[in-house]
């Protein structure tokens, strides 16, 4: 994903929007499995072991989804048994629950990736194009909050430095409260000076331009084209009923012919596009090095 990160924020955003959209709106089990696998692979690349731990922590959620679906949905024709109240337990409801939980997991993982990759810089850039004021405000908040936290800590330390020892819960709460109050008034004080600093550098109620560190290169353009072509292919095929599936009343999928295989490959390619780019780049660098 590291190479993919270097692309223009718009490319990143489009990719995430399409992939997440497709994950959320197509319940085709093979699609979902691909999507989950892909998102987990990327998360593993970025976070390593933590990705596994994260997924394991999410498993109960998936199990609950399956359980709830099986308990409350009684459609489907393959009956596996009956509950005490006479409602049937069906194979279809279990499979649907499993698919739905796959969807939930994949979506959560994609969102986590989104959060990782779309740094404040990129989001601000995307906002800045449309609402420059808002992006400046966000940037200022992002500066203000960490500063407030560290100042609060310093003030708390300052009280301890004066020899105020905090024995007992009440005293501790009181001294923390005191520090917080001081921090709030200090923050107000600071913001007056900050506004002065803004004024000094010509900030007024007026139109302002927006500086960005991102540039739209040729490679961004081509990647965007590839993403669109793949997406359009998949959508067309699905609208044509190529990859028909249903869960109720019986589970049914079209048999896997050439066209189906092609479309699934398209989807796989779209999902693994960042990985493909990564591999391409590392091959390119290896070759460069061997030439040198």
């Amino acid at each position, binding site marked *: 994903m590291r190479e993919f990160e270097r692309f223009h924020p718009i490319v990143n955003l489009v990719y995430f929007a399409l992939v997440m959209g497709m994950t959320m709106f197509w319940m085709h089990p093979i699609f979902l499995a691909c999507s989950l696998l892909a998102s987990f692979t990327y998360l593993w690349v970025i976070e390593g072991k933590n990705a596994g731990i994260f997924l394991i922590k999410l498993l109960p959620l998936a199990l609950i989804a399956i359980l709830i679906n099986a308990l409350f949905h009684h459609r489907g024709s393959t009956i596996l048994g009956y509950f005490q109240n006479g409602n049937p337990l069906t194979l279809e409801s279990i499979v649907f629950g499993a698919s739905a939980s796959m969807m939930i997991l994949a979506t959560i993982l994609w969102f986590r990736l989104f959060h990782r990759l779309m740094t404040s810089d990129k989001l601000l850039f995307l906002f800045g194009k449309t609402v420059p004021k808002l992006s400046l405000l966000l940037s200022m908040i992002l500066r203000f909050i960490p500063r407030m936290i560290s100042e609060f800590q310093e003030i708390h330390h300052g009280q301890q430095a*004066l020899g105020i020892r905090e024995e007992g819960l009440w005293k501790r709460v009181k001294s923390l409260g005191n520090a917080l109050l001081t921090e709030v008034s200090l923050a107000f004080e600071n913001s007056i000076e900050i506004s002065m600093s803004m004024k000094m*550098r010509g900030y007024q109620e007026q139109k*302002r331009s927006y500086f960005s560190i991102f540039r739209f290169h040729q490679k961004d353009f081509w990647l965007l084209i590839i993403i669109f072509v793949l997406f359009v292919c998949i959508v067309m095929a699905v609208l044509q009923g190529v990859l028909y599936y249903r869960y109720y009343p019986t589970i049914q999928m079209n048999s896997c012919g050439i066209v189906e295989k092609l479309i699934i490959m398209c989807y796989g390619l779209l999902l693994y596009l960042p990985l493909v780019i990564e591999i391409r780049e590392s091959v390119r660098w290896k070759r460069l090095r061997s030439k040198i």
Partner: protein
Amino acid sequence: MEKIKIEDLSFRYAIGQKEALSHIVTEIEEGDFILLFGKSGSGKSTLLKQFKNEIRPYGDMQGTIFLDGKKIQEVDTSTKVGFVMQNIENQLVCDKVWHELAFGLENMNMPQDEMRIRVAETCYFFNLQDIFEKEISKLSGGQKEIVVLASVMMMRPDILILDEPLSKLDTTVREELLKYLKKIHEELGTTIIIAEHTIKELASMANKMIVMDDGKIEMQGKTEDVVKVMMMNQKHLTVLPYMMKLPTYFGEQKVIWHMGEARNFLKKHLTQKKELSRLIKECALPSIPVKKEQQTALSLKDIWFRYSREEKDVIKGLNLTVRKGEVYSLLAGNGSGKTTLLKIICGILKPYAGKLVTSENIVMLPQNPKTLFTHHTVKEELLSITTDERKIQEMVELFSLSSILASHPFDISGGEEERLGLAKIFLTDASIFLLDEPTKGIDACMKDVLKKVIQEKQKENKTILMVTHDMEFASSCSHRCGMLFAGEIIAENEVKPFFQSNEFYTTDFVRMTRNIDL
């Protein structure tokens, strides 16, 4: 034509009774480097703020300031005049370095391509490529200072104004900032006006000096001429660095800028025994006897500390013993772990290994004294420590706080903050005082007061441990000194042998007299 011309400027704050500025007359040429010198509270900041329409304080202004022949009120000072405030934290508006740099240009509604060139240029000038995409909160103090300077210079001002930029910085950062100021002055020809209450580093850079006192201009002119006048005046003599004072002991009027000149001068005058002995008496290192018989006040044995498991050790197996009634100075640079060490001794941070023994109650003056203030007025701050009016009165007089007693502690200047912090600390009846850079931001006469207070406390058998860069100060009032480097104390000795063996970390006088047989 002169760049700035001030004609009989007087100013009175809307709430003040007294004139903060009275009858200021001066002329500043294009490309001048002006040192505006004066004690804290002499009206330097008020004068500087008059050059910026956006921040000119409310009040009654008389007289005129002309910028390029036009009245200043009619000039767009947001781009023409760059201003660096004392508190750099509050000058940084955005979260990323690149955004901060571009902030002013965005305000000018400059097109993207033009901005790119300007930002790139300025980054090269100030060497900011490596931190360009970093978050402001992750930068060191020195880097922040440079980013502030760069984002002001980004707008290509004709005049650059700095309000006490040096006093709160430590030595290495100071040098960095001075380097860039010199570069700006020499390569861009920008007119620079800098207010400061120490002249050690700046006097050799500035071509003109304005000395202010009590809202009036006391002297102005070429730096050399002003320094010569100051050398003759007992009142100003104390603020001059040792090196510059040297000729006065021999009754000569010569301005010395460099150490080499000073040593040459001294060698030539070795025959004048009487004057020489007076010089030695006043400037040589005092040898204060160490109280060996006293019991220990605090001892650290093999202390290890780091902020989290993944990070590097900040304190590495540190050993330190300070006796009761002793004044111990730790000389330390940036990133040596000095603030961390003091916080450990004070009990704010817990070391993960080692033994810390302190029997008595400890108070600490933190690096930023502002963090000590939690009340609404300066008076309440002092009352929160003790109700003994007599003691408070004594402190108020010592640290000359009487004029700000009713002010809110956030409204006072940097130097006053430091003084109030010191007053608060010394009002407590603690027996161990930890001082984190007590001399930053305070002027020469206040240093003498601090020295006196420290000596008094020491007579009461109280213990003082301070961390400082200020060699002259450390040498003048400590029993022992140590050098902290990368989390360890690597040298420790009594004052005299300590400073005599050091080459860089030593006082001007020792440097001046090295290998000269007095």
